[in-house]
């Protein structure tokens, strides 16, 4: 191996006073060579993005480089004058970001934004030459119809197309190093697959060095030549991808690998039990009126949905964004009213329920939402948020409060947590509180709407385990909404795949993974990151699950 493209040596980044730790990044050394993809993997707060930003000199003002060096092409980037650093940005070193939605200027045409990148570093470039080059780039990144697309605005593009534009912009000046900061995290799984393939092929074609930052071990498995595992600002382990993934030396790496969902034993659907929830011909179209005369916008969220959830069963509804899966969950609880069709809960029509009947029904059917930050009232103590439920059903205040404390302990928190406010808890802890809130009403049906999607993998694994455990204990039935097939596989007996408001496939988990009946399910399965690796790995005995109920969640 020749001289590496990028070398980071003993980098220490100091956080401002009052942060949870003194150093965002503590003594990190790594290198990226030409023509290789180095994955920087870690959970949230591991400092991986900080490292990326340090390279380009884009650190927020509060964070200070305490010591260390970042060498690129023989120069220490940390000591480079501002003008030279600027000349490097976007030309020799380019970067793409996580949120293509916000990373592009919403008010400028995408073509102009790419052209700007070219002209910034080559002021002499003519108009014609530049626009030609932009179209070339658009073609290279696989954007359809570049000629018209260059004059589109970001909001007119899909998420994947935006990310392709970002990549085109990054490649505009033929960088030797590309830094990709979670470039696929905000994308649907099939789109993620395409973008990963694109980065891979472009890298290979151009011989670029790529520093790829991700939290997803699956993605690492798919793309990395070498891996650097980061935890709380420190390098845990680094080495060639194959070695690190197959023979992890460190416990943490192993934990990360084990936490990846969808590798447990498959469950078998219990066909024989009676249905608790039955949905027939459910219909919902969202119509947004824009005026008296303009045609209303119609979005079909549910079209003739039929499904059954048996007692004690876990049914996962899987689909990409916009498939209508969350609307389905809300329609069951009548948080959104359906247009047509029937929802039967234990034989009773939910849609026909009056106010009081609905109240009683909701007691039996509880929900846990995706965003643990939005789903707790920031101005109420956690204990109150839980105890209001039983109180609404006639439980005396003191008893309700006792129940709240009891449930907090049950989901792995202390009973003192009841007296604290939501902002004092981490995301995983909040999700535990939400589960406690839902279960305090002793429901028979629990709806989990992307309940683990916002969490780090290790926490995700813990929450999934907790849910599984509680489900057994309380004989719950669960409607589990997720975009992640791996999670569905982890927890579900039956899986329903939705796309654009329609059910594409309804199948036992085992059957679906073994032999998907629909093309769409097949493409979803194929797109799961790290699929090949884990399939190979699952041939070997799986590492043990971490214990549930840990306070660290």
């Amino acid at each position, binding site marked *: 191996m020749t001289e590496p493209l990028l070398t980071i040596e003993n980098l220490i980044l100091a956080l401002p006073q009052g942060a949870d730790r003194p150093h965002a990044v503590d003594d990190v050394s790594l290198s990226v060579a030409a023509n290789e993809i180095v994955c920087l993997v870690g959970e949230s707060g591991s400092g991986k993005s900080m490292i990326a930003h340090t390279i*380009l000199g*884009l650190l927020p003002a509060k964070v200070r480089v305490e010591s260390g060096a970042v060498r690129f092409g023989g120069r220490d980037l940390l000591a480079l004058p501002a003008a030279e650093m*600027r*000349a*490097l*940005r*976007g*030309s020799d070193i*380019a*970067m793409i*970001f996580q*949120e293509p939605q*916000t*990373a*592009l*200027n*919403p*008010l*400028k*045409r995408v073509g102009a934004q790419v052209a*700007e*990148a070219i002209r*910034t*570093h080559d002021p002499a470039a003519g108009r014609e030459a530049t626009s030609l080059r932009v179209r070339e780039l658009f073609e290279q990144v696989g954007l359809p119809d570049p000629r018209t697309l260059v004059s589109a*605005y970001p*909001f*007119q593009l899909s998420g994947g197309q935006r990310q392709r534009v*970002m990549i085109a*912009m990054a490649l505009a000046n033929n960088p030797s190093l590309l830094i990709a900061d979670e470039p696929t995290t905000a994308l649907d799984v099939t789109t993620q697959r395409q973008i990963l393939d694109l980065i891979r092929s472009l890298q290979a074609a151009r011989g670029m060095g790529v520093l790829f930052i991700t939290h997803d071990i699956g993605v690492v498995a798919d793309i990395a030549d070498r891996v650097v595992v980061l935890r709380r600002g420190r390098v845990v382990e680094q080495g060639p991808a194959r070695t690190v993934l197959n023979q992890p030396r460190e416990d943490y790496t192993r934990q990360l690998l084990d936490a990846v969902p969808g590798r447990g034993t498959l469950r078998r659907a219990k066909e024989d039990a009676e249905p608790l929830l039955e949905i027939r011909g459910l219909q919902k179209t969202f119509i947004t009126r*824009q*005026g*008296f*005369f*303009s*045609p209303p916008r119609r979005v079909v969220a549910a079209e003739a949905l039929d499904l059954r959830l048996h007692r004690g069963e876990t049914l996962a509804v899987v689909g990409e964004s916009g498939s209508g899966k969350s609307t389905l969950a809300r329609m069951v609880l009548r948080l959104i009213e359906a247009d047509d069709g029937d929802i039967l809960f234990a034989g009773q029509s939910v849609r026909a329920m009056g106010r009081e009947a609905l109240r009683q029904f909701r007691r039996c059917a509880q929900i846990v939402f995706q965003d643990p930050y939005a789903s707790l009232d920031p101005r109420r103590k956690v204990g109150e948020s839980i105890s209001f439920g039983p109180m609404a059903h006639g439980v005396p205040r003191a008893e309700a409060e006792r129940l709240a404390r009891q449930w907090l302990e049950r989901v792995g928190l202390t009973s003192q947590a009841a007296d604290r406010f939501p902002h004092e808890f981490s995301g995983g802890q909040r999700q535990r509180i939400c589960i406690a809130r839902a279960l305090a009403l002793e429901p028979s049906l629990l709806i989990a709407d992307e309940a683990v999607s916002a969490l780090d993998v290790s926490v995700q694994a813990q929450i999934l385990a907790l849910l599984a455990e509680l489900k057994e204990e309380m004989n719950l039935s669960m409607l589990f909404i997720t975009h992640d097939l791996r999670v569905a596989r982890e927890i579900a007996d039956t899986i329903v795949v939705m796309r654009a408001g329609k059910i594409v496939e309804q199948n036992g988990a085992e059957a679906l993974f073994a032999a998907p009946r629909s093309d769409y399910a097949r493409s979803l399965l194929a797109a799961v990151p790290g699929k090949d690796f884990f399939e190979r790995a699952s041939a070997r005995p799986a590492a043990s699950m971490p214990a549930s109920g840990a306070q660290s969640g």
Partner: protein
Amino acid sequence: MMHALRLLLGRVTGIAFAILAIATINFVLVHSAPGDPALVIAGQSGATDAKFIEQVRADYGLDRPYLVQLGTYLGKVVQLDLGYSYRQRRAVSELILERLGPTLLLTLSAFVLSLVGGVLFGALAGRRHGSWSDLTISMMALLFYATPVFWLGLMLVLVFSIQLEWLPAFGYSNMRSGTFGTFDQAVDVARHLVLPAVTLSAIYMAVYTRLMRSSLIEVQHEDHVRTARAKGLTEAAILRHHMLRNAAVPVITFAGLQAGALIGGAVVVETVFAWPGLGRLTFEAVTARDYPVLLGLFLVTSILVIAVNLLTDLLHRLIDPRVVTR
């Protein structure tokens, strides 16, 4: 194209409805006032003659039932006939039309001045967030925001007209300039415009400055600015191409909402500066209880506000492509 047409059609009917509703509200409001307009005319003519008063009443339909008056009024509004001023003895539309120009000139220049000034100062302050210039601009903005408009007008007259004798203190033009070439007159009107426009725009400039400042500070932390930085753009280029326009969007949206207040402010400013516009006509009509003029004025000013709203909408569309299809 069809889409745009439909949008326009929807807009127009919406405006028509709004105008009719405003017309009705105005009519009810103005006519619930105490004070007999017939008496005012009579009194001001030095009349001591009951017959004369009856005559005035008959002349202007004031003796007919309330609902008939309203019906007649609405019917006329639909035909764009705003009635006849008994005090001024002229058609209301004529009165309003001849005052419309100066008011448009004043409010539009104040609008543009406040917007441009606000965006400029706000950008300056927001860019150097926390610096001395930021502190100074923010403080000035706060002070101007808290200054009563009429008071500011007086101070400006005191300083620029009376002390320094730079600018005329009042009026629309030096009447003799009207006989000369158009350029002279334009210069003359422009000189008369300076103080009232500055006075009227001050408070809004302060508002927009504050808004622009916070908007810019917010934009500074947005992802696409980081993207621009990662592209290697200079800070100046980032400011110009990726921050100013984005930060100005909420300011412009807000400015549209302020159009009504701007015309309200014009009443005070036009009175202080003897600016012969709709604002002054409004005050004169209120004190003279000139019903037809008041009704016409409220209608026209409301239409003006709607027009300004449309204008800002257009501006918004121009700088924010997302609005068009949304």
